């Protein structure tokens, strides 16, 4: 399954669990405006680590903190490419 699809599913799932209403998920959606709080994002990151074995935000390499959903997805796509 595409990384993008996995991430989209996770985002939707966590938002539902946490009772958050999301706007349409587009690449230029700013994470801070998405309705997801930092706890939601922390949960998504932990879930993706379990599912994909990837945690690019905790890696030793310096990574830019993702601002938009598109940045977030690219972070994981790049991590797969180098993994």
């Amino acid at each position: 399954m595409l990384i993008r699809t996995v991430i989209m599913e996770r985002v939707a799932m966590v938002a539902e669990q946490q009772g958050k209403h999301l706007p349409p998920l587009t690449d230029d959606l700013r994470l801070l405006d998405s309705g997801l709080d930092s706890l939601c994002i922390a949960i998504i990151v932990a879930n993706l680590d379990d599912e994909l074995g990837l945690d690019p935000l905790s890696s030793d390499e310096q990574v830019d903190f993702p601002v938009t959903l598109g940045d977030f997805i690219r972070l994981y796509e790049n991590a797969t490419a180098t993994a």
Partner: protein
Amino acid sequence: MQQQQPSRRSLRSLIAPEDPPPGRFIADAHARVSIHDFARGNNLDANLESLRGRCVLISTARQLPTALALAELDGIARRMILCTPGLAPSHVASVMADAGVDTIVTDGPGAARNLGYNARVVTCNDRIVAGAQPSDRSVETEWVLLTSGTTGRPKMAVHTLQSLIGPLSDGVAVQKAPVWSTFYDIRRYGGLTILLRALAGGGSMVFSDAEETVAAFLARAGAGGVTHISGTPSHWRRALMSGATANMSPGYVRLSGEACDQAILDKLRQAFPSANLAHAFASTEAGVAFDVRDGQAGFPASLIDRDGGDVTLRVEDGSLRIRSSRVAMRYLGDHTRPLADAAGFVDTGDMVELRADRYHFVGRREGIINVGGRKVHPEAVEAVINQHPAVRMSRVSGRTSPITGAIVVAEMVVAPSHLARGDSSATLRSEVLRLCQERLASHEVPVTLRQVPSLDIAASGKLVRNHA
């Protein structure tokens, strides 16, 4: 505040005042010693006079010879240090140096075995050899207990026989010949106080054995006629999981040493419907502070700041503070931290929270999980998870998160009866998570909930926690 003490009574005189009635005993999985015989002999391969004023490390494998040696040495030795089983050799060395040990009492193995120390070695046995007793047991022996710290050097808390026995006003109607037992090892505070209550209260004692299964121990306790038994909530969860609680029918069931949640109290009430159920707060440093006997988790807020009793409790910066005659005197060795503050209060490090008219233990100060600046007490989350009838025990911990610093994760052990029913584990997980979502703040709800076959319990009887 120092009160005039009556002339010192040694443990031996408390155990066997004149002519102890037949029938009283202490027993482990291998041997049984009658108190009547003990009154007429001793179990040490040494002339007791030669041990007067000595500083003794008790390094033993078995609890039975240990108990007898304690009774022999109280009032004779200057200091007795109770070596916890499995103490690392490097810690044994530092304990011996800090405490000035000149004599080792051992039953052969024990933590100090195979270590070439410059100390006299005396053997203690599980048999009594008849012989005359020293009449002078007036030495105010220091009883030194090692604290069950998970890391670093163990701390040595100095007690006296008086502070260990104390006036335990827990209102337990002690029947004529109580038979006590405990899941605790008697080389730890929780076990030692039970041993002393048994011996000084005209009773008998059945020791647990680390090599034995829970079911075998419960069967032995039942066969030994145990009437009073204590353990940590973790011990008791294991006892319930063994399915062997019907092997005994105690009149008194006691929990201490860890936060006690409502689920374990309810389950023990079901398992022992006619027993008096009590949960107590005690620690090696602060001693026994109180017992709660209404079957409800937590303790009444009215216990706090109450004057006039033999214990004064306070809550300061969220943690429970205790002052009583059962508080240890001091730490031995080069610990700079004083045991108690200037007013004599010991900070237990146990965090409490007031809900309605009761305080509840929410966890250890050092165990707090910080989720993006919001504090989570693992025990508070475990208490909710444990409410699910299919859950036997659980452990909550923090997992590093690049977003919030930490998130909450949980492991749970599921009851065999539930597994046998073949319900899907996904259903159970979502039920438990729903329970958590209903009762907890969102940052307290475990992000992952893993089903595990078992959870480790440390030698101290407490759930093993790895604090980051």
